[in-house]
């Protein structure tokens, strides 16, 4: 696969790995946060940490929209799905996320009609095919996914499709990064920045991180070599005493982002004064809602879900995991009370949550099993 395979080469990885080790000052430890769950997934799926020296550790950030959806919003979604004649559509990622009374799958077992879609546009198809039903799209995601939802709403309006609406849970990355950087015991030396968010918002919105918080950030692609190279660039900045926003992902990310996407977001959606993040609590101006102009397509206005706040479970230390204060395995309930089958906290909910990724893929690293010997290939 072009633009994929060439970034998965083990030989180049070993070479980069040697350079990374060479950039580490003796006796100094480095902690870098990969903000995005997609990066977390890549890191574990490819065993990327095996290429990092012991001095470099990765902290898995809050960039997994599925993980940070608060239970109350999942409950609200189910409330909407239970209304007469509703078909709810959702990305596969959301199907297993627990609310306070189970997940979408559990709700389907009790009679709701929640269907998986690949694209928000598929929801429009379902709405056209079922004129007597009300189709509600469960919109989740960071800025990468937001323009797709906005364009879908605009399309529904243009078609006059009256039985379609969105339950908008889109969130924005910058306020979350600020919340992490403002937390008192944050221990992060630099950021691997979310490349696909930057396809939309560009690189400039991160300028505050070097400026106000003195940490470098490298906007990174999603293949394993992209991430290794970004770590290499972060270390080089630290070695050279620089602190900047750099773009490693130049093949995809333009510095200014995608103005068309930004315009369509702005036309359809507006910032919410306040939104709750699972594991991080309330963060002002950190999410989007449907503008008045498109009120007819706003499931929150149409169905007025209860909007009850559900406290994060007490035992759960997701907030500390998300800010890099503790590692997944340091959480009191990790792997015993909280597992991918029975997740208590946000980070265990989705395969790209920090704890789930570590549990599913990463446990092997610390069993002192070296890579297996080469098999004789016939």
């Amino acid at each position, binding site marked *: 696969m072009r633009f994929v395979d060439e970034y*998965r080469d083990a030989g180049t990885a070993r070479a980069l790995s040697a350079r990374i080790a060479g950039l580490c000052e003796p006796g100094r430890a480095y*902690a870098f946060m990969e903000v995005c769950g997609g990066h977390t997934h890549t890191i574990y799926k490819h*065993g990327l940490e095996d290429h990092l020296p012991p001095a470099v550790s990765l902290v898995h950030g809050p960039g997994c929209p599925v993980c940070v959806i608060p239970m109350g919003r999942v409950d609200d979604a189910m409330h909407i799905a239970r209304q007469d004649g509703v078909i709810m559509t959702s990305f596969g990622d959301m199907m297993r996320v627990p609310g306070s009374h189970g997940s979408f799958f559990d709700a389907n*077992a009790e009679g709701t009609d929640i269907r998986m879609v690949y694209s928000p546009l598929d929801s429009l198809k379902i709405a056209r095919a079922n004129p007597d039903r009300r189709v509600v799209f469960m919109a989740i995601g960071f800025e990468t996914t937001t323009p797709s939802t906005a364009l879908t709403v605009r399309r529904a309006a243009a078609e006059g499709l009256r039985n379609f609406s969105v339950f908008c849970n889109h969130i924005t990355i910058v306020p979350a990064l600020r919340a992490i950087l403002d937390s008192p015991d944050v221990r992060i030396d630099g950021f691997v920045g979310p490349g696909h968010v930057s396809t939309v918002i560009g690189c400039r919105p991160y300028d505050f991180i070097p400026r106000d918080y003195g940490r470098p950030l490298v906007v990174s692609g999603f293949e394993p070599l992209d991430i290794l190279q970004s770590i290499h660039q972060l270390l080089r900045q630290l070695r050279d005493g620089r602190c900047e926003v750099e773009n490693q992902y130049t093949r995809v990310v333009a510095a200014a982002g995608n103005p068309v996407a930004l315009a369509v977001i702005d036309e359809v959606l507006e910032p919410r004064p306040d939104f709750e993040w699972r594991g991080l609590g309330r963060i002002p101006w950190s999410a989007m809602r449907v503008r008045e102009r498109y009120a007819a397509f706003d499931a929150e206005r149409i169905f007025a879900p209860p909007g009850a706040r559900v406290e994060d479970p007490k035992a759960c230390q997701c907030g500390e995991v998300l800010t890099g204060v503790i590692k997944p395995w340091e959480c009191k309930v990790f792997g015993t009370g909280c597992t991918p089958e029975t997740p208590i906290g946000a980070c265990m909910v989705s395969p790209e949550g920090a704890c789930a990724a570590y549990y599913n*893929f990463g*446990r092997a690293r610390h069993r002192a099993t070296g890579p*297996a010997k080469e098999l004789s290939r016939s």
Partner: protein
Amino acid sequence: MTTTRTAAGTRTAADRSESGVLGRVEAARRRRPKLRDTHITSAHGAGGKATATLVDAVFLEELRNPLLEPLEDAAVFSADGTRLALTTDSFVVTPLFFPGGDIGDLAVNGTVNDLAVAGACPLHLACAVILEEGLAVDDLRRIVASMARAATDAGVSIVTGDTKVVQRGRADGCYVTTTGVGLVPADVHLGAARARPGDTVLVTGPIGDHGITVLLARGELDISADVTSDTASLAGLTSRLLTAVGAPADGPGVRAMRDATRGGVATILNEVATAAGVGVIVDEDAVPVRPTVRGACELLGLDPLYVACEGRMVVVVAAEATEAALAALRSHPLGVDAAVIGRIADDPPGMVLLNTAFGGTRIVDLLVGDPLPRIC
């Protein structure tokens, strides 16, 4: 604002406690899982952790007996001095017809394969259908004709059956259950628990074809690809393999065969690791996956290791029999792309490790339920 600490000093302390935590996690994983669900959800049918928990907590709990206990694809027992294999399987698939097959040949091949991987020579099948009001008789004819063809290809007859009809909306057009019986040669001894360190792990061809074909054939994802189901009878392949290398009670030969259906190859490898208490070490770049299947998986965020096959099996064979096994498999049309994908190790027990093409290592665990398309 950077924290400095001696990397070496803190690492060991951290690692010790980390391995302590991981030890506790492993212990928790080895305990029998509790069924916490109050209702059946789709995850219980996906062949992953939820299925295993349900089978253990409900079926095994009530029906426990020595033949059921190993939870192999077929039960092997002696009657009147003859070794028999018995298996049954239900088939529910949407759509009923898909590129490369339909529910008819799927139902015959699936049961034949459960017998074949038990080392049996399939004899006869029984077939029970549940039909939904409104199913077109022509569709039913197509399905049964396809069953007949598959049975002929596999060298079995369907000798008894049953038909029920349920109200419209109570079934997905048609459900098929097939039960099969086969003869097991006296000198064939197979079972996932027989895998031992040093053995080789093979697959008989590219993985994930069936699962991706059916997923795309539903049309919901609007994705088209030139990929067809791999549904096929493995009886000829298993008999060729057993003829070539055998499966003796002791001595080198085939240790275990499993057809990788729901949950894909990853699930089978985990079953082997658990049953034998061994580690399974797999090389990612040795696992055959068709480019189109890989493309669909990348696009949808799926891992081909978990995608269903219907005509592929995982074979565990003694190291010294590897070359002969590979040659036997490759000499058969269904095994031309057979490949060694890994080996059995004594560590880590009960786990599957993947050496990634990128030069790292990761765990391949059982999934909870079906692999879901991801956007994240």
